[in-house]
């Protein structure tokens, strides 16, 4: 029901008369000032970013891998190309963790005679970790055993390979982080170049517009219509394999996305009042482009760059797989994966570790760029 005033209503009739005075009649009423302090663009984005736990976890994951990629190869005495044919295809062993049954250098040997297990010339003392699957085949007791392969193969006690060794006796820990370093290096540099070219190209096309823009955009359309696989393959066939040509191959098409985005931003902002105002004040083109329009795009640029990195890592390892990328003895994630895949059935660790690493890296970068996108542009949240 309507809450209507009636003269006999106690609540409204016993109000202190002094309260019925005009209090603002003489006062100039201003638009209220915002009491909250203005928050800067980056601080605001950072606050939103930190609120998203997934992005923070992803960032930590990336920093962790980055740390190991930088310092990992130097953590033990092996070089990435130190071959030792006495120590080939060893399982992973980390002494500290061995007690808990993981990374204990264990390897399963199948179909062993139970009565032969005591033979210390074949099974050095203490090398058998586990006996299982005991059975009788034609009256002979057989079993499978898991041995500490290092002791079993008579490898000196001070020799350990944390992630095992490959078919040339190279240390996989060193090679893996070396590989991560190479892959990340390729990814970061190529994305940096992409973004740089994209910004310049997009800014010019968007700022000058008209015919310039039309011709420049036609060129990007043609480049973009070609299948990336074909372009990259031709490029590398022509320039040869090597880090530089791989980096450039990753640039050929990938700058176009950034260029288009920057162009769109320029189209959006160049007609806006503040740009027109600066222009009438005689501000130079260069200053307008770099100081007045481009800063609007910083958020999307960073997000885009982060999104491009997993793509670059993917292409690098893809190229290594089809024989056009980094080649052994140099290491990269792709090289490790394709080499490990060949011996997967016998030595799964050689492919599993790099596979897990690249997966974590890619997932983290994708999560991070999602988080950044939301942080820079809250209107797109969840899209």
């Amino acid at each position, binding site marked *: *029901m309507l809450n209507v005033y009636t003269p006999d209503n106690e609540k409204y009739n016993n109000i202190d008369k002094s*309260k019925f005075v005009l209090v603002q*009649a003489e006062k100039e009423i201003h638009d209220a000032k915002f009491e909250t302090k203005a928050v800067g663009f980056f601080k605001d984005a950072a606050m939103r970013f930190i609120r998203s736990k997934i992005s923070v976890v992803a960032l930590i994951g990336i920093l962790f891998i980055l740390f190991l990629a930088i310092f990992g190869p130097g953590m033990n005495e092996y070089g990435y190309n130190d071959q030792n044919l006495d120590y080939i295809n060893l399982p992973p062993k980390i002494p500290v963790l061995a007690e808990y049954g993981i990374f204990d250098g264990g390897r399963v040997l199948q179909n062993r005679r139970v009565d032969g297990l005591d033979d210390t010339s074949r099974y050095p003392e203490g090398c058998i970790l586990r006996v299982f699957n005991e059975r009788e085949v034609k009256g002979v007791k057989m079993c499978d055993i898991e041995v500490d392969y290092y002791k079993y193969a008579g490898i000196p006690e001070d020799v350990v390979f944390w992630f095992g060794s490959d078919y040339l006796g190279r240390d996989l820990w060193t090679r893996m982080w070396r590989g991560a370093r190479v892959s990340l290096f390729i990814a970061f540099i190529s994305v940096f170049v992409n973004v740089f070219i994209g910004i310049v190209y997009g800014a010019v096309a968007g700022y000058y517009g008209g015919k310039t823009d039309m011709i420049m955009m036609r060129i990007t359309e043609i480049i973009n219509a070609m299948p990336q696989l074909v372009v990259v393959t031709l490029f590398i066939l022509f320039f040869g394999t090597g880090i530089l040509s791989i980096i450039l191959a990753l640039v050929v098409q990938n700058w176009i996305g950034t260029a288009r985005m920057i162009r769109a931003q320029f189209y959006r902002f160049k007609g806006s009042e503040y740009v027109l105002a600066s222009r009438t004040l005689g501000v130079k083109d260069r200053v307008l482009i770099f100081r007045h329009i481009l800063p609007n795009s910083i958020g999307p640029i960073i997000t885009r760059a982060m999104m491009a990195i997993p793509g670059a890592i993917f292409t690098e390892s893809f190229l290594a797989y089809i024989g056009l990328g980094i080649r052994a003895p140099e290491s990269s994630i792709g090289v490790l994966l394709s080499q490990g895949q060949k011996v997967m059935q016998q030595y799964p660790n050689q492919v599993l570790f790099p596979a897990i690493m690249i997966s974590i890296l890619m997932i983290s970068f994708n999560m991070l760029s999602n988080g950044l996108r939301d942080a820079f542009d809250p209107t797109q949240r969840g899209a």
Partner: protein
Amino acid sequence: MDKPILEVKNLSVSFNAFSGTVRAVRNIDLELYKGETLVIVGESGSGKSVTTKAILGILPKNGRIDSGEIIYQGEDMAKYKEKDFYNIRGKRISLVFQDPLSALNPIMKIGKQITEALILSGKYDKKSAKKRAIELMEAVGIPKPELRYEQYPFQFSGGMRQRIVIAIALASDPEILICDEPTTALDVTIQSKILELINEMKAKNDLSIIFITHDLGVVANMADRICVMYAGKIVEFGTAEDIFYRPAHPYTWALLSSIPDLDTKEKLFSIPGAPPNMLAPPKGDAFAQRNKYALAIDFEEEPPFFKLSDTHYAATWLLHPDAPKVEMPEILAHRIERMKEANGIVD
């Protein structure tokens, strides 16, 4: 007076937002009588659109009705489940949107958009629905309806699209039409034509209309009764004459003073300040901060409605017997005089 056909009692609606709960509508009461045009006026964010969305059960997912009743045909629609609305929406109560550019599905033929609901309701087959659609298109003033029937929204102008939206709203012969700022997105020249059309349709189809606007000037000719909303509350309501000629609430004064008219020579009035933050509505009268005539009590206690006549109520402490006598601003008083003269009304 008759019984109202739609009655909103003590309705409160709130939204869960990123930074807290927004109390968009606070304890409002509304009555819609048969055959009348009820205008709800208020600035952006005053809760007028939210009220109509609550009536039709189409609040966004983060919105909810906290309390109150919406009585229609003897039932409380505030307690309706989604399914219960299927017999109401379009069939009994229809809505005309603010932006006809985005209200039509861009990739569906106009004809299909009109007939879709008719056919799905099972009352029409394809042929009779088409016949009905073409009649409707003719009625809302679309030339060559047979040709237009097969076209897509992008081939229509903004005004034409709004006519189509009106045709869709009227397709199932509703009893109540809610118009949510139907002319705001249109050119001024088109605005009056659409208003004429709505009036015409009202007479022809025996409609009762709830008309939402932020611009009192637009509806001066069609309103029967007017509710003024501010910060989620109704601050004054009465017949159109009550509101235009005898406004009592300082906010209504401010609204009326800010309508431009040809005879105004003074600087156009604008209301200082910004509407209150609805995350934490202020204590007392929400308008007090911006009100030149605010009393000390305004900052402490919410005013009740004071009855001015059988049809006219206003919620302001200025009407309390203890309050100082305050006249409306002189500019407004002059303006009202002029309006009265123009319309031949003598007190």
